[in-house]
């Protein structure tokens, strides 16, 4: 059993009168896939946003490698090696797929022009094609903006982006929801590969067979609180469903 890499303790998040998180805890370990499951509106995406710096929790503590961190922006999280596929994808719809893939990490040209900030667009395009191929994505044209791609194609771009850069933790908020059978298989393969590199992968999914097939651990969120944890191998589907609906409770409210 590997070390706990990311440890979130008692997070709460309020949006006006809405309480999205009510004291949620969560742990992810290096070299393991941790699934985070729960009903719609349970607070999974909110938790991910808090752990990747996109939102600030109202209260609670986040520990990375045992030391408390303050993720006050996605930049801070990225610097710590945390990458995220957001459920709403967070892409720039007017830019083309290659530009989105490299957003925030553009490849500069060689030499002086590069120092001046000029980009090597051809190289980025070339690398993008390779990355997309790995995930089984075919695009009829790469000149089009990402806003006009099909749902699955768009999701693949977001997935490709996160796995390309992660060094410690990858959050994937329903990365396969819009993917076809073939692409879904590829992404699950990629998840395993990333995990084998020693990175902690956090997978959110509503597809229980998928969750059971790929996760080492499963944590269940209900109404903004963690209510149960399972080890991946010895879990039954019924237990998961029971936990998600609140019929099975392991942890008491803090």
């Amino acid at each position, binding site marked *: 059993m590997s070390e706990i890499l990311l440890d979130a303790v008692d997070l709460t998040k309020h949006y006006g009168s809405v309480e999205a998180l009510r004291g949620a805890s969560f742990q992810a370990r290096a070299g393991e896939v941790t699934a985070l499951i729960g009903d719609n509106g349970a607070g999974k995406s909110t938790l991910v946003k808090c752990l990747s710096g996109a939102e600030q929790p109202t209260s609670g503590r986040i520990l990375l490698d045992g030391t408390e961190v303050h993720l006050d922006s996605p930049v801070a999280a990225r610097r710590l090696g945390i990458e995220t596929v*957001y459920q709403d994808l967070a892409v*720039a719809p*007017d*830019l083309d797929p290659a*530009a989105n893939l490299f957003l925030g990490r553009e490849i500069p040209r060689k030499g002086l022009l590069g120092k001046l900030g000029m*980009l090597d667009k051809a190289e980025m395009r070339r690398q993008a094609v390779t990355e997309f191929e790995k995930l089984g994505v075919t695009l009829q*044209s*790469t000149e089009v903006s990402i*806003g006009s791609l099909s749902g699955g194609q768009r999701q693949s771009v977001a997935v490709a982006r996160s796995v390309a850069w992660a060094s410690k933790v990858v959050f994937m908020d329903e990365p396969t929801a819009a993917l076809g059978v073939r692409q879904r298989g590829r992404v699950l393969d990629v998840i395993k590969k990333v995990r084998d590199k020693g990175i902690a992968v956090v997978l959110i999914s509503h597809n229980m067979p998928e969750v059971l097939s790929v996760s080492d651990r499963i944590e269940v969120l209900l109404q903004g609180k963690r209510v149960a944890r399972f080890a991946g191998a010895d879990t039954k589907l019924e237990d998961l469903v029971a936990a998600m609906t609140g019929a099975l409770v392991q942890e008491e409210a803090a």
Partner: protein
Amino acid sequence: MSAPAKDIQTTVDGEFAKPPLGKRLVGANTFWIALVLIALIAVFTAIAPAEFATLFTFQTLLIETSVLLVLSVGMTFVIITSGIDLSVGSVLIFAGMVAGKTMEALSGGDASHAGWGVITAGLVAAVLAGAVWGLINGFLIAVAGIPPLIVTLGTMGAALGVSLLLNGGSDVRSVPTELNKVLGYGTSFGGIPNLVLVAVVITLIGAWLLHTTRFGRYTFAVGSNAEAARRSGIGVTAHLLKVYLLTGFLAGIAGFMSLAYYASTTISAHTTDNLNAISATVMGGTSLFGGVGSMLGTVIGVFIPAVLNKGFNITHVQDFWQMIAVGAVLIAAVWFDQRRRRKRNSR
């Protein structure tokens, strides 16, 4: 049946290379609006060949649009970030005023006969003055999170108020003759006005910055989806600050150019500079919703109304009819452009 699949994969790979030039040209966002501009020039040339199609007309046309062009370069960046800057005209006046006062102070009151040292000091003063207002705008918009329209409406009034205070509400009139002669209406390379050269260089740098560099890429990304840009690790706040700083900086240069051109700070003018720059940018295909735009489009957008006005003036179209005709042609030009290309959002 797996053959077509291969086929597609091949064309896909093929299309990662650039399509042929002709196709790219026709497909370009600016192609149709450029056609409109060319058509306008052609029409006026046909109507008044002896008057319109002369070197002199083009020289003056270019000179008269130089200042606006520089403002519009900055405006293009701002609008692509889905912002807006109403303050450019006032910042221009402020920069000109600061430059004028600086040059006067350095020449002990009357700067008419000042030399290039003083003039350079004036330029620096103008640029700094513009940059300061840009920074104020940027800070209020990016850091304090106030809507750009309100911020720049406020600084529009404030910058003008400060300019008026600086010289008790009157124009600085002792502008170095040398500056007026060389930059204002001097020419180089056999007939190209120096003011135009400055504007062209700035526009080229602007185009380079927007379309090939990281700065430009971030500008598009922030305008397309600021939250996505933020989550991608782009410092959105810092970037917006830089964009408004750039716009202020360019307004400062424009202020100095205007000073050189008019040999006066023209404080009671420039009230429609902001609207002119905004409409030039939008006419060139930049979306007010951000994320989309091009520098070439803006250049065309600057010249369409300029050519129209010049042409109508030369062909003696009645003033009131001119206002109607300009309005109609502007709308028709954009309509012609618009129906050729589909846009995500129309505005």
